[in-house]
């Protein structure tokens, strides 16, 4: 039995028929999907947690206050949930960076910017102006353009 360099399980089964390029693409896009859901949810929870604490620049005027604000940040359940969600994002990101170019993955993950704005209006009631929506749409267009370039350039097969 030949061993496929791209098997994701020990018993590779029928998936061996997939070309290595397709497998690489599948792995890449699956992990990017995890990234664009977990990342935005994490940011939303951080935002909610920090808004509960209040504007930190007016709260901190001495080093002892920095300590008490930090203690409040670290004892907020919402912030820890946000951190857990961002860690999920981070693990997916680290995995995908082990084979895909950084300058490919980072823009591809920018879909998360649209997801953040969408979820912020729905879940947090934030008001997004038409110009801001336009800006986010242009960001996504940029992502689309970048997404059509090769995922790896440093070591071409």
């Amino acid at each position, binding site marked *: 039995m030949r061993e496929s360099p791209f098997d994701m399980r020990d018993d590779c089964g029928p998936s061996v028929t997939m070309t290595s390029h397709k497998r690489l693409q599948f792995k890449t896009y699956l992990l990017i999907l995890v990234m664009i859901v977990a990342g935005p949810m994490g940011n939303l929870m951080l935002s909610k947690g*920090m808004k509960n604490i209040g504007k930190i620049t007016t709260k901190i005027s001495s080093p002892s206050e920095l300590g008490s604000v930090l203690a409040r940040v670290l004892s907020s359940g919402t912030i820890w949930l946000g951190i857990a969600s961002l860690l999920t994002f981070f693990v997916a990101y680290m995995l995908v960076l082990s084979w895909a170019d950084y300058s490919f993955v980072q823009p591809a993950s920018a879909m998360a910017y649209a997801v953040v704005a969408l979820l912020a209006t729905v879940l947090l009631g934030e008001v997004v102006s038409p110009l801001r929506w336009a800006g986010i749409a242009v960001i996504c267009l940029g992502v689309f353009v970048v997404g059509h370039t090769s995922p790896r350039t440093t070591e071409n097969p």
Partner: protein
Amino acid sequence: MLEVLFFSLIVVAGTGGELCVSRAMKQLGEVHHFHPAALIKVFLRALRVKWLWIGVGLMTVGFFSLLAILSFENVSFVVPVTALGYVAGALGGRFFLGERVNWRRWAGILLVCVGVTLVVIGKG
């Protein structure tokens, strides 16, 4: 002014940290196996790479700057502005990691910049 400081830290430290992490993971090599035991092994190996720690340190600075700005700005404004990291990311990918950034990627990155500008104008 504080906003500018926090955004700069998020973009420069955050992107710099990600570049270091990318370098660390390339040093480890492509991840082929996705079952938990194999992932833990990859994780433990990653902890021994110097670039990973530099990257995590920089990303921590970026993270606390993000928390600070989220305490008084909307997340739907803050997160799109942090997309400014794309310029830094492309430059870093090109010069720090030796990736080839073709004209199409540059065009996409330029569009992202235009989008971020609209988001900032759209705030007022």
